[in-house]
């Protein structure tokens, strides 16, 4: 791709050469602010290779207070994201406050994060199937300042969630998102109970696609009295009629109901929904659709023509499903 001409109809009077000169003469903090917006991967892979001035800027720990390594569609597979992430964490020299990782998280990486960053305020783990309950449990103890936590499209049992609640007294925002599904019909209040019992200071809670029931919701309303926003979209075991609906409306300022629109949901919101609420799905196909979402939710979101053959490629992720069905 050729760069477009930049001289044409500019309304400023600067000549090309002046523009270029200006660009390198922008104050250091301004250039840093621009480069920071590119995200960790692009800083390491592009920006710091442009010139010495940029490379030096990119070595400053203040550039690495936030590390966003969520997956992008154009992810370059010629590098190892975990090594890259470790390098980014090292560059932050303990100043890291905000980290997002997707797909490549492991217990070791989590340990590296918590050991090198005592200032962490925001942690987001998306589709990190390699992180175990034990790994998360251990990390919890090292996150005393954590205020915002997101665990999306991966599953943990009640214990590490409770540990996070106990060890992170400043936790204000928790997102625990799953792919929504209606069948098979599974009721699962463990996560809701963990939240209710260990996170009394929560202000914002997102439980997209959770299997909690009205009991779990009641427990949350009791256990988290300061809750201001609650997102229950695609929580199809929750029925917000009668007293519970009334209570929610009174207690929660911003409530997203199970069947509310999902346009602004951050991840693909395709439901495992074959058009019925049939609990005895003889083919088990709906489970398959659900599992597939865990692996490649960009690719499969909202598609209903997923076939059994496709599933064979994702056999490794049976374990992920066992958590629910075992």
């Amino acid at each position, binding site marked *: 791709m050729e*760069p477009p001409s930049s001289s044409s109809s500019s309304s*400023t*009077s600067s000549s090309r050469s002046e*523009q270029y000169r200006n660009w390198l003469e922008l104050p250091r903090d301004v250039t840093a*602010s621009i*480069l920071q917006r590119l995200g960790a991967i692009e800083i390491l892979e592009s920006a710091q290779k442009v010139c010495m001035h940029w490379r030096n800027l990119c070595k400053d720990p203040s550039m690495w207070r936030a590390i966003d390594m969520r997956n992008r569609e154009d992810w370059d597979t010629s590098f190892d994201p975990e090594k890259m992430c470790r390098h980014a964490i090292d560059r932050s020299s303990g100043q890291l406050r905000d980290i997002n990782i997707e797909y490549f998280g492991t217990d070791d990486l989590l340990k590296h994060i918590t050991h090198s960053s005592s200032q962490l305020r925001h942690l987001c783990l998306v589709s990190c199937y390699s992180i175990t309950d034990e790994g998360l449990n251990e990390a919890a103890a090292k996150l005393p300042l954590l205020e915002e936590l997101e665990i999306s499209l991966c599953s943990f049992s009640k214990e590490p969630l409770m540990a996070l609640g106990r060890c992170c007294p400043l936790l204000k925002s928790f997102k625990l998102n799953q792919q929504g599904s209606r069948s098979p019909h599974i009721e699962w209040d463990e996560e809701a109970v963990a939240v209710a019992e260990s996170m009394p200071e929560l202000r914002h809670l997102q439980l997209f696609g959770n299997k909690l029931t009205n009991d779990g919701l009641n427990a949350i309303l009791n256990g988290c009295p300061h809750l201001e926003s609650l997102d229950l979209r695609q929580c199809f075991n929750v029925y917000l009629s009668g007293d519970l609906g009334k209570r929610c409306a009174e207690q929660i300022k911003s409530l997203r109901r199970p069947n509310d629109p999902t346009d602004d*949901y*951050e991840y693909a919101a395709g439901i495992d929904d074959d058009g019925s609420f049939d609990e005895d799905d003889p083919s088990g196909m709906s489970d398959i659709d659900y599992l597939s979402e865990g692996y490649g939710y960009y690719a499969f979101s909202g598609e209903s023509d997923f076939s059994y053959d496709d599933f064979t490629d994702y056999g490794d992720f049976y374990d992920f499903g066992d958590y629910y069905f075992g």
Partner: protein
Amino acid sequence: MSNTSENPNPSSSSAKITLKTSDNELFEVEEAVAMKFCTVKQYFEDEKDNDVAARGSSTVIPLPNVHSAVLARLISYCKKLPQSNAVADNHEEEETKKKERKQYGTPGDLVDLISAANYLDFKEGLEFFNQALADHIQNKSVEYVRKFFGIKGDFEPHEEEKYREEYAWAFEGVDED
């Protein structure tokens, strides 16, 4: 373009402030707009404290680092505030915002706008134009960025070598463990 900022709803509260650019153009702008530039605000308040001027309109505030063409664009941007910097909730909204940011011209224009916004301490503008410039280099190769901005690769061979050693993730087949 006229250097006087139009005011479709004149009212007693819309006091004007005169700004003088590096090329000696005078801009008469509404106080509300001028006060978004913290540098101007500070100057104006200092003047008031010194009792040099009771009314802003009688004071001309010099902006020796800002060209008239740039100031005109900043003022027109100001009038579109405030929605511009609200965080986009979803992909679609982000795309709309990206398009909006693209309207502010070439990287060269943006660099001028950023310099001016920085000098004027105009935080919303700086945020907006920084992001607009970042959009231009997002997902672009090193060569593209260099060419686009006229930046020369100035690495010594030993720097390149050091880089390859330090950043082993980037090269296939290299395993540092």
